[in-house]
């Protein structure tokens, strides 16, 4: 198969980027989108040109490292990770536009690679969970109902790829943060730090320059892990409650009338 590619080229954070056109030919329909880009890079290497930089790691849809915007769709048009897109899904001769994520909290490092460490810092700001060390605990000492377990797991499967941020017209990371808050705040292990976790993560999210939610729901529509929009509802609820329940560092001293 043959494709025309419009690819965003940008040398580093500081330089201005632009689209560059390439043609790739002899692409196997069964090759993945990233393999197609590998072929393009091999071709550029032979021509002694700078290769296109893009992120990938597992290439099996579980790590969340790949991060392309394909024809305007973060992670491609099929609600899977970019590495799970195959060239047979495109028509022969098609022109495909490939861009990096576009939001201020993810600066472009080179070409299609963005710095998504802001998401790591949001997780860090959530802090630890208290746990006991020592002998292995009794298996049933902390009961979790199957329903809770499933619900927490549905949030925990977020791979942190950042497609939600890339899809959001406001560059908001609330689907991501919501998923992270939900998975720990639902489980008994997450209870002691329930308040500080959500406050810390929301403050970090704002500090990183992510936008706010206007309930468009685009994030959930592109999420390769199909995280449901209700994690944002839960994030809103948890944050509101946390601010209400927040304990002052020290209660005021009481005196008589």
């Amino acid at each position, binding site marked *: 198969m043959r494709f025309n590619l419009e690819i965003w080229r940008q040398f580093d954070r500081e330089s201005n980027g632009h689209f560059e056109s390439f043609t790739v030919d002899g692409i196997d329909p069964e090759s993945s989108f990233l393999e197609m880009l590998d072929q393009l890079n091999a071709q550029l290497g032979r021509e002694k040109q700078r290769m296109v930089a893009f992120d990938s790691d597992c290439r099996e849809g579980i790590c969340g490292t790949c991060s392309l915007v394909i024809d305007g*769709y973060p992670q491609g048009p099929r609600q899977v990770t970019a590495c799970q897109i195959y060239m047979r899904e495109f028509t022969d001769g098609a022109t495909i536009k490939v861009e990096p994520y576009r939001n201020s*909290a993810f600066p472009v490092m080179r070409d299609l690679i963005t710095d998504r460490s802001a998401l790591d810092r949001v997780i860090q700001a959530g802090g630890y969970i208290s746990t006991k060390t020592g002998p292995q605990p009794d298996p049933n000492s902390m009961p979790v109902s199957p329903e809770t377990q499933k619900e927490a797991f549905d949030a925990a499967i977020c791979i942190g790829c950042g497609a939600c941020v890339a899809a959001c*017209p406001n560059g*908001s990371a609330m689907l991501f943060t919501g998923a992270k808050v939900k998975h720990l705040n639902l489980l008994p292990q997450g209870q002691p730090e329930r308040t500080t976790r959500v406050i810390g993560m*929301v403050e970090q*999210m704002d500090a990183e320059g*992510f936008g706010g939610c206007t309930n468009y729901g685009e994030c959930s529509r592109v999420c390769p892990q199909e995280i449901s929009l209700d994690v944002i509802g839960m994030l*809103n609820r948890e*944050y509101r409650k946390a601010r209400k329940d927040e304990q002052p560092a020290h209660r005021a001293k009481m005196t008589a009338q």
Partner: protein
Amino acid sequence: MREFWDSTIGKKVFVAVGGTILVAYLILHMAGNLWSLAGPGTVEPHIDEYASWLRNFGEPLVPYEGTLWVVRAILLAALVVHLVGVIQLRARNRKARPPEYPARRIGRSWESRLMMVSGVVILVFLVVHILQFSTLTIDVTPLVEGAIYANLYWAFQEWYVVLFYLAAVFLVGTHLRHAIWSVFQTLGVDSPERNGQIKAGASLLTVVIVAGFAAVPILFFTGALGVPIDNEPTAAVLAGGGGR
């Protein structure tokens, strides 16, 4: 409280609470307007009686128009909080997503995309509407203080006034369809199980509000509602006198 307001989530909660107060008012206002459908009456139109009841409300415990002014103050506060919140959030969102790379539309509703447009139109409409029927400043048709029914009747004989009101009410509807559902999400009181009902409920409430508001100009214009008892605007009014 300060930290809450400064966070994107907290600010949005203020926007939602302010918006909810405004929605609650819209429902009451719409219902109140329906008194005009009772027609010109025999002595005094029902809508005029209703208006004076609003003004006398709580008398003698509260002064004349006292309750009305308290409600107006609450509404103004709600509107200001709503607007300030929306504008600040919007500024943050634009910084977070550079406008030169707009996000492709994947599934967001057109009502949600129009929130800012419908909001600005509502604001403009609000000003015009108050200047017309409350302060009687925009006096395209002769308006008389306190003669609500007659004022409505004569204003809504003009096709362009009717069109303007219908267009504004339609945009209020587009604002509300996204807004009412949004409140549940912003306050975190929805759930996947209840989402269908909340969405349907938001649409239904929107239709009821829009239909209730739209009925008044339409029924006046089509002549379904009779001419005010005084029949013609009084000579004093035509001479630009105003007042009673």
